């Protein structure tokens, strides 16, 4: 008669007639599961946002910025401004031909750009075609710059989604001319970028064309070295060192000078961001385990309370013939039933809540697409049910073994 229809009937009867008690224990479980899943989902959402920030730019790049020296060296005074030229680019490319996929140029300007009556200040990046790969620029329409544009110093511009929105009001910008102070660009493409709004308020133009506008300058501001993606992090550090030594030698900068040329490896950033991500993971796991434990403690308390409240009833049942085992079974069956139903309810509600939240918290709280793997959610629910059962079992066993006279004592 252990799991007979009758014992279920007895349990449903008890549940029906003790609604407050049932509600209390059920609610604890449901809330426990709910909080766990929502928090865990948020944690995952944070990680999503984080991942999005860092997939934006290509990771296997080394950035080289010229700056001013801080040490005198070989007859040069300190505080000398270092500048790269097109010739430097060619020579570096030749020298590192084997290790490097491409060396991309990026000269940054801020220009007032005008189309018809509308005008705005934008960042203009004078680049070589490889910049598209380095920046993970996504083309929406038209085309990007290519080598021919560089060679022929074409006055072409690929404009950001928000530039197009600002200046063109929904009109197709491709083929239109936009104006800088004393020059014009023909729009050949529109791009978007996952790096956020700032990255979409920009224009890309051929660096050679920009150099021509700057009175035939041959200066290069920033070089982005794209190295072989198969390189390990250590190999990339080695390449970084070699580049630094080569450039310092070439530009006559003291090897001990921390400035003069500044080199940063995004591989390093990736390493850091991976560390940050794993810290985030640990925090999320910690929060998850914390809520789960809080839930378990909550259920245990409720179970102790429930059994205590029923001590007299259990004494009566024993006096009229209930065996200790039948008492334990009854309490367990009841608590597992309640925790399963309410745990499931909490699970479903939490999943729906996460769905509804979706990407609404992305802008303000950096939580994008909060989710929990259903296996994780199910596992947590099962854990709570299991511990609910254990939490019920201990006081139930105690109550079942109390002598009926003690349980029945008035007071």
């Amino acid at each position: 008669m252990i799991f007979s229809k009758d014992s279920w009937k007895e349990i449903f009867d008890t549940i029906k007639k003790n609604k407050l008690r049932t509600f209390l224990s059920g609610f604890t479980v449901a809330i426990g599961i709910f909080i766990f899943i929502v928090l865990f989902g948020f944690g995952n959402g944070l990680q999503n946002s984080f991942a999005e920030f860092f997939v934006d730019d290509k990771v296997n790049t080394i950035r080289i910025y010229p700056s001013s020296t801080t040490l005198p060296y070989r007859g040069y005074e300190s505080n000398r401004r270092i500048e790269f030229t097109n010739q430097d680019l060619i020579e570096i490319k030749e020298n590192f031909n084997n290790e490097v996929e491409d060396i991309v140029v990026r000269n940054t300007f801020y220009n007032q750009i005008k189309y018809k009556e509308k005008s705005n200040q934008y960042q203009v990046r004078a680049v070589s075609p490889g910049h598209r790969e380095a920046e993970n620029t996504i083309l929406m329409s038209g085309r990007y710059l290519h080598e021919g544009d560089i060679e022929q110093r074409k006055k072409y511009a690929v404009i950001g989604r928000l530039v197009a929105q600002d200046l063109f009001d929904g009109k197709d910008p491709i083929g239109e001319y936009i104006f800088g102070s004393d020059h014009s660009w023909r729009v050949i493409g529109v791009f978007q970028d996952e790096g956020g709004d700032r990255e979409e308020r920009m224009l890309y133009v051929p660096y050679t064309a920009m150099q021509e506008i700057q009175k035939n300058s041959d200066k290069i501001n920033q070089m982005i070295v794209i190295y072989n993606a198969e390189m390990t992090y250590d190999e990339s550090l080695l390449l970084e060192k070699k580049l630094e030594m080569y450039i310092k030698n070439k530009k006559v900068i003291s090897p001990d000078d921390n400035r003069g040329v500044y080199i940063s490896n995004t591989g390093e950033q990736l390493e850091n961001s991976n560390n940050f991500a794993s810290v985030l993971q640990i925090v999320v796991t910690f929060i998850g385990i914390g809520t789960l434990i809080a839930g378990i403690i909550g259920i245990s308390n409720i179970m102790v309370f429930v059994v205590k409240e029923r001590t007299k009833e259990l004494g009566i049942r024993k006096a009229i013939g209930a065996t200790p085992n039948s008492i334990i079974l009854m309490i367990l069956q009841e608590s597992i039933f309640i925790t399963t139903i309410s745990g499931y309810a909490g699970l479903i509600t939490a999943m729906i809540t996460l769905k509804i939240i979706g990407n609404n918290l992305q802008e303000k709280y950096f939580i994008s697409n909060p989710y929990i793997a259903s296996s994780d959610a199910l596992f947590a629910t099962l854990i709570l049910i299991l511990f609910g059962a254990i939490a019920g079992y201990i006081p139930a066993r105690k109550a079942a073994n109390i002598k009926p006279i003690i349980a029945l004592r008035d007071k």
Partner: protein
Amino acid sequence: MIEIKDLNKSYVMGKNSLHVLKGINLKIKEGELVAIMGSSGSGKSTLLNIIGMLDNYDTGSYHLDNVTIKDLDETKAAKYRNKFLGFVFQSFNLINYKTAIENIALPLYYQGIASKERQTIALDYLDKVGLKDWAGHLPSELSGGQKQRVAIARALASKPKVLLADEPTGALDSVTSDEVMELIIQINKEGKTILVVTHEQEVANMCNRIITLKDGVIMTDVKTK
């Protein structure tokens, strides 16, 4: 039916030990209606609880229907209680969230009797104690006398060999006391062995035998009829 020889029982509390029953010898035959009297603290309830297997005794022997009752584990005790004994308590001890009929059907549930049959039997007993129309009422909707009659019906439902009542009229006024005692006498007349603990002389006088305890010893044991 009940045979007790030289039974002793002490309660140990820390260093102190209280010798409550001091060498009780008692034989109760089938069909007797016995009153157990005595002043407060004389050991009446203790004796009844031992007979009812709600408590253990230290030395001596106790046979119920020729079965030796000694140091039973809770599972065995529960089975024997269910089979041999029915209890009526001063404070009724009905389960407050169950209706009258559900309370009466509960011992039958623990006997493994099917649901339909439980209903029929329970209703029969409810009828017997004159409360057929109250089947669906909760204990809180019943008067003290009615509650006690439901409790008696519940005690009888499992067809016990012996009915044990500890101050069944203790919480009732004299009119309802009489009603409950009349019910007990009627049940006894149908052949049931009944032990009633009481400190009311009128209640005791309705029984066929009165045992008086004093300080854990049987002082007098008289047949009244």
